[in-house]
């Protein structure tokens, strides 16, 4: 390996070194204060984000097992940035936690797993990355150590992900049997639609479906989101989901592009059920974390619509959407985290009159909900628009119609929460909350993202160019 190969791997190497360093520091107990740990890790994650902007990105390593392009680097940077925001928001919670260092190691390991998964051109490396990205998060879901619900969430997550990995592996092994190779990009020349191929594809899609919580594989989502600490809910719903969506896009367009006609049909079915069920359930929730959980389930349905595009527009629109979705969802969950930490209240009804007691937080939450609902001129609108226009390429009219109707339905429940915040009559209104500085900065970044990403159209052009 020469120096440029090392540079291709620079983000992963840096991350691995940092994780090991932290382990050593922990073993020798060199840092005692939780706050120092937090600052250190925020700095590390920031560094990883910066690394994404350096140097020449394309290359392939280890006999083509590991590939890297500018587009993949952008995806990684988005994930690292989302992790950074999650860390900033969890400052309050982690300050007094007894296992803070372990938290960071698990979180960063999961991130490393995602990076490997995204760069993998070998299906086994891909699988290892995926597992590496999942198992630590299951441990993290259990991180509210004295809460039973949190243990339940951890358990549910590990069981369901084990099941889905089984499905995935089964599909993978069939593909390996057909093609005789583990290299994803060489599959596209060999795989043609046929009975066995279709069976394998269904297994693999089921595996993916579990990971991005598509209906009917979503049953674990709401329980896990509700039981986990809010930071982990944020990490799961943005970073994990984003990473698997990117991976799905790469798999579909690099590995099985020749079966596009067939997988578009699968996407169609999954997408309309996901959107509809997600929306209908979101409407009925009383807990705000469950509410957001189901709304993210519905959002995944739109991502599938975007994937029904051509090989350039589909990945571009998905990456753009995840970026936008990251800002919107992290803003919403950030506010929920601040409120839930300060008052232990997580019911939708508690947010009645929120605007009167906490103007700034209410405005941030409102922006986030606007963006999730896709109301112009917020970034969420542009995200949805690009997904739709990408999907028009091969989506049927029924699909588009379902998606549009679901947009209207989701508009209703997002706006219902906005309405609650601005109404006045609440017998026990939330107290005025003093939010910590780092959380505030994270919320400001998210709000700025929601407001300006869409309006500065150059970003989409940039992604589009990289995807070519």
């Amino acid at each position, binding site marked *: 390996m020469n120096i440029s190969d090392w540079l291709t791997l620079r983000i992963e190497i840096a991350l691995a070194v940092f994780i090991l360093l932290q382990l050593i520091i922990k073993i020798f107990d060199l840092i005692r204060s939780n706050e120092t740990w937090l600052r250190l890790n925020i700095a590390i994650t920031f560094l990883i984000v910066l690394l994404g902007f350096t140097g020449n990105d394309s290359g392939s390593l280890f006999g083509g097992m590991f590939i890297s392009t500018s587009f993949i680097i952008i995806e990684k940077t988005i994930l690292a940035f989302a992790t950074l925001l999650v860390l900033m928001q969890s400052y309050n919670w982690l300050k007094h936690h007894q296992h803070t260092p372990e938290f960071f190691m698990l979180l960063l390991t999961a991130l490393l797993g995602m990076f490997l998964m995204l760069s993998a051109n070998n299906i086994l490396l891909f699988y290892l990355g995926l597992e590496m990205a999942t198992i630590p998060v299951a441990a993290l879901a259990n991180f509210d150590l004295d809460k039973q619900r949190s243990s339940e969430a951890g358990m549910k997550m590990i069981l369901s992900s084990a099941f889905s990995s089984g499905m995935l592996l089964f599909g993978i092994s069939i593909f390996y049997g057909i093609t005789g190779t583990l290299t994803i990009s060489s599959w596209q020349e060999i795989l043609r639609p046929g009975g066995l191929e279709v069976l394998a594809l269904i297994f693999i899609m089921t595996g993916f479906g579990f990971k991005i919580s598509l209906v009917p594989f979503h049953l674990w989502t709401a329980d896990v989101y509700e039981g986990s600490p809010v930071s982990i809910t944020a990490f799961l719903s943005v970073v994990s989901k984003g990473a698997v969506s990117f991976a799905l896009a790469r798999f579909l367009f690099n590995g099985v592009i020749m079966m596009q006609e067939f997988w578009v049909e699968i996407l169609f079915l999954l997408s309309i059920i996901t959107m509809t069920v997600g929306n209908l359930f979101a409407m009925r929730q009383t807990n705000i974390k469950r509410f957001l959980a189901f709304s993210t389930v519905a959002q995944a349905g739109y991502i599938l619509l975007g994937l029904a595009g051509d090989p350039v527009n589909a990945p571009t629109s998905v990456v753009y959407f995840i970026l936008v979705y990251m800002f919107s969802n992290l803003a919403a969950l950030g506010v929920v985290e601040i409120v839930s930490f300060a008052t232990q209240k997580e019911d939708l009804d508690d947010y009645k009159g929120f605007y009167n007691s906490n103007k700034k937080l209410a405005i941030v939450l409102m922006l986030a909900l606007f963006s999730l609902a896709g109301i*112009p001129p917020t970034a969420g*609108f542009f995200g949805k628009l690009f997904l739709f226009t990408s999907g028009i390429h091969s989506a049927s009219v029924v699909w588009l119609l379902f998606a*549009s109707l679901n947009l209207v339905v989701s508009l209703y429940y997002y706006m219902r929460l906005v309405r609650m915040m*601005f109404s006045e009559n609440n017998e026990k209104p939330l107290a005025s909350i003093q939010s910590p500085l780092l959380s505030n900065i994270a919320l400001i970044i998210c709000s700025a993202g929601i407001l300006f990403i869409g309006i500065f159209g150059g970003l989409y052009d940039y992604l589009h160019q990289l995807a070519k």
Partner: protein
Amino acid sequence: MLTGLLLLIPLLFMIVSLLMKGKQSGYVALVSSVVSLFISLCMAFTFQHDDTVQFELNYSWISSFGIHFHLGVDGISLILILLTTFLTPFIILTSLQKETDNSNVFFALILLMQAGILGAFTAMDSFLFYMSYEVALIPIYFICGLWGGENRIAVALKFFIYTLAGSLFMLVSIIYLYLQTPGNHSFEISEFYKLNLSSSQQSWIFWGFFLAFAVKIPIFPFHSWQPSTYTIAPTAGTMLLAGIMLKMGLYGLIRFVLPIAPEAVAHWNTLAILLCVCGIIYGSVIAIRQNDLKKLVAFSSIAHVGLIAAGIFSMNAQGIQGAMIQMFNHGVNAVALFFLIDLLERRSGTRLMDKFGGIASVNKRFAVVFAIVMLGSIGLPMTNGFVGEFLLLFGVYQWNMYAAMFAGLTIILGAVYMLRLYRNVFFGEISEASTSILSMSMLERIISYKLVALIILLGIFPNLLLNISAPAVNKLLNLIAHHSNLSSIL
């Protein structure tokens, strides 16, 4: 350049106004609106009276998607720009008359709305139009939801979801048209004009746009959000809605529906005009039964805009020119009426008709002002309303005599409800509420005299406006004729 300034000024002053406190923010907003007025007057004076698009500004926005930040002004836009910039100072002055909580946010929202509306009127790119159309919706939602009257949150939400859902259909139509454009695709409106759509395609496009604009205007039976929203909104909000915002829907009909789907309009306009005429009669009849003054004007507004929409759908020069001038006039009249009703309400604490009586003997000046505004709204000769309604009815008559007969009821029924209002409020015994209207302040006098002057001026010299829009309207009609020729050859 001027167009860019026109959008930039309210946005910049919006930020300044947010940083101010109390009345100061209102004064900042006032300065901004006067500067905008000045800019738009500069445009009106340097405007070449022909059918070209002037004061253009064109930047690439999202180039891989063919979205441009393309602004421009032709005769049709200019009239509506003038309407917006003329009315905004009055709206801000009205709001300055009373104390508002969080007034910095309130005035900032008004300015944001002005920017959004001006963006919609100057957009030459359909995507930009859609964006501005929606941007204008968010501030008015908050103006209604935060500063409105009873039950405001539910009403504002209904209004918001209704219009947003309506415009979703427009978005779908725009994306469809975008995908029909040749080559690299473009959202330019002028590119859409060049498309040769089959008649079934045109029908889909027509209904997509129609649903969006029919909710906004509102055309019967899509009006159900309108009376409650007008009633609960603070006066400034009602003025913005009735005076300016619903013109975006009418403007959209002229800018998009007529030139892009002329065959479909010709095919469907019987139904559309029927709905408009229903709205005219329905709105007028309900207005006759109202006791709440604001509600009365809200319902009369359904009737008036119904006639304007009917004129547009009749697809001839008189109808469209009438719509152009009547859009302006209706804006002026509606704002004037709401201003006077707001004055009544501020002084006496009520706006129920039966609480008043005999104001004519208490305050003659006010009675005269109200009379002139009312006559303008009915459409008496020498007032602005007459010219517009005459042209509109003439246009509808050319399309179909019977439709014009029923549409003409707007004048008769208008006289009924307006004169009934005038009799109950201004004549008869002097009630307790009426005694509070003893005098008008200096500012109130200035505002009302200016509005009255505008009403009479445009009644006598309608050509001031008609000349601006005539070439652009002719171009539009040529475009429509060209389309139908093409299809007859094919």
